[in-house]
């Protein structure tokens, strides 16, 4: 935050707000995707690969066609395919879900770096920002409130997803499949198919999260683009207790924590900020310790989720 420096210490909360809004979008999409997948009882640890593939695809399509929105759609499509691959393989008997996720992460990152090699130099058309800070004279405030349309879509999606889970037939079916395979079968739900669809849709959302990275912020394609947002999705969803609206708050918190370091640096605090960056993981671990028990499933988790001690 170059503008935050003129405001002195007041720049810190402003930079945090700006950072939270700007960096939270990829977190928001991957966590909503992971939340959808986990609600149906599957865990996808491969969203990191999906995210990076989404970033690369979006950048490539935007570069070739000149339309960043086509890039976003392409990223969603690639994410959908990768999610479907995960969902399909995990539907086979005796396959370890966690390991499949790690394998897809390795493959996705590898493919993205391979195919994205020629994209490091050229610059692609970027997604436009929406200026919500025009009322203010301060450039710092304007910069902080320059939000991206994807952020707005993500916020709306969080509420829609919460409503779907709470009040619709589809949501009930997903929750039933996630809580108990047997109960779902007893009422005639196709467990495998629903899990395949939620994993594929979750992958599509992660792909969109990736497109934000390459088409808005940081806004270029290189191999260090993702700082592990995809892997963090699993932590975020646990932190958010499998609730899409809490995923939104958790994403803002994780995004803000990432912005704390540079913000403190701009006012002269230069050591120790890596520890602030890590705070969300420590918090998630503490939440897990507090809510786990030897005798029952993780509080708030879908009953059939494979991370529960009982299954």
């Amino acid at each position, binding site marked *: 935050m170059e503008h935050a420096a003129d405001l002195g210490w007041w720049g810190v909360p402003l930079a945090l707000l700006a950072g939270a809004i700007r960096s939270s979008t990829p977190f928001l999409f991957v966590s909503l995707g992971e939340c959808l997948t986990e609600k149906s009882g599957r865990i996808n640890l491969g969203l990191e690969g999906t995210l990076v593939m989404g970033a690369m695809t979006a950048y490539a399509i935007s570069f070739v066609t000149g339309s960043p929105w086509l890039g976003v759609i392409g990223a969603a499509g690639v994410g959908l395919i990768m999610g479907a691959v995960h969902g399909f393989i995990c539907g086979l008997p005796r396959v370890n879900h966690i*390991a499949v996720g790690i394998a897809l992460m390795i493959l996705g990152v590898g493919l993205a770096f391979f195919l994205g090699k020629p994209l490091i130099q050229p610059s692609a058309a970027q997604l436009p920002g929406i200026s919500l800070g025009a009322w203010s004279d301060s450039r710092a405030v304007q910069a902080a409130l320059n939000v991206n349309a994807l952020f707005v879509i993500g916020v709306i999606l969080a509420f829609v997803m919460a409503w779907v889970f709470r009040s619709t037939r589809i949501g009930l079916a997903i929750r039933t499949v996630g809580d108990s395979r047997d109960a779902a079968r007893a009422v005639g739900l196709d467990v495998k198919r629903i899990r395949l669809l939620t994993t594929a849709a979750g992958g599509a959302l992660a792909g969109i999260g990736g497109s934000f990275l390459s088409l808005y912020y940081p806004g270029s394609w290189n191999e260090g683009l993702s700082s592990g947002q995809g892997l963090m999705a699993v932590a975020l969803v646990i932190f958010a207790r499998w609730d899409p609206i809490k995923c939104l708050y958790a994403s803002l918190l994780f995004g803000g924590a990432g912005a704390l370091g540079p913000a403190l640096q701009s006012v002269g605090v230069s050591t120790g900020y890596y520890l602030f960056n890590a705070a969300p993981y*420590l918090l998630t*671990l503490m939440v897990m310790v507090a809510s786990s028990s030897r005798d029952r499933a993780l509080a708030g988790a879908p009953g059939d989720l494979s991370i529960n*001690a009982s299954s």
Partner: protein
Amino acid sequence: MTSLHPGLRAAAESVLLIVMTFVVTGVLFALFVAAAGAPPSGVFYDIYLGAFGSWFSWQNTLTRAAPFMLAALCTALPARLGLLVIGNEGALVIGGVAAAAAGIVLNGVAPLAVQIGMFAAAGIAGGLWIAGALALRHYRGVNETISTLLLNYLAIALLLWLVGGPLHDPASLNKPSTPSIGSANMLGDIPGMSVHWGLVYGVVACALLFGLFRYTTFGFAARIIGGNVRAAQLNGLAVARITLTVGFLAGAAAGVAGMVEVAAVHGRANESLVAGYGYVGILVAFLARQNLAMIVPVAILLGGIEASGGLLQRHFELPDATTTVLQGTLFILLLAGESLRGRIFPIRVVERS
């Protein structure tokens, strides 16, 4: 086939599954490189040349395989207890930092003493790191897969904080690092080859731990816990002690991998420790089917694939990531192939009337 002995049948099936996995991976990878404009036969020949084609490439391969062996143990040992630990990267990083810190503190003592100190510090730090996660699992029911994933991030954050703050070497400007452990204290090469001692650490660790789990009552008890925790508890086995010990050994192995990286490769701890060896270690453990004796050859195979990356780049202008694509494809097909187990030579039930 029904006349085949069941044990033999299972073994034949394992071999067939591995062969099928490699064949299908090979076909898919050939199509992939062909689509990228490189001749598949040339690419395969180069992978062979770069990995095992000459003494030079063998040495390169073995050097790369060493950390994979140690990192793989971090997943394979807890797998004996039926636990899935993916904190290899974190334990490796913590071990590397601890080794560098010990090397700096002990600077000036005899090199062998410094090396022993670095080894012990790395083993203890990595060991406590993973034992802590398994303690949370045992006493609080905290899922060990997720907790060790989170611990990876905490380890990397600790590394970045330490090399930028308390252990910072003011001379390291572009890449914050700890001070050097001193060239006299570095692990040298095994006599007669340009492969560092890390390879010996890896092979010896796999052999010793294989013996421990195969031939001792400790290993037997661990197997029972892996089979059924409740049964183990009812039989009065010290489940807590065994779980924590296995966690400690697993973390210590990955920690020593970090020490090898510091003491044999970089000479100091910095961000280079975060090289994804931990994740390759998970792949090695699964490819070896969590069998401690199989880790050594599998690690060498993957070391070979990585070693051939440079040759592919020079000859066919294929990016570094080519070998990652190959690894990922192999890993996915291997896992998917597990679903065929028991179906290739199904046991036929003959009905008697």
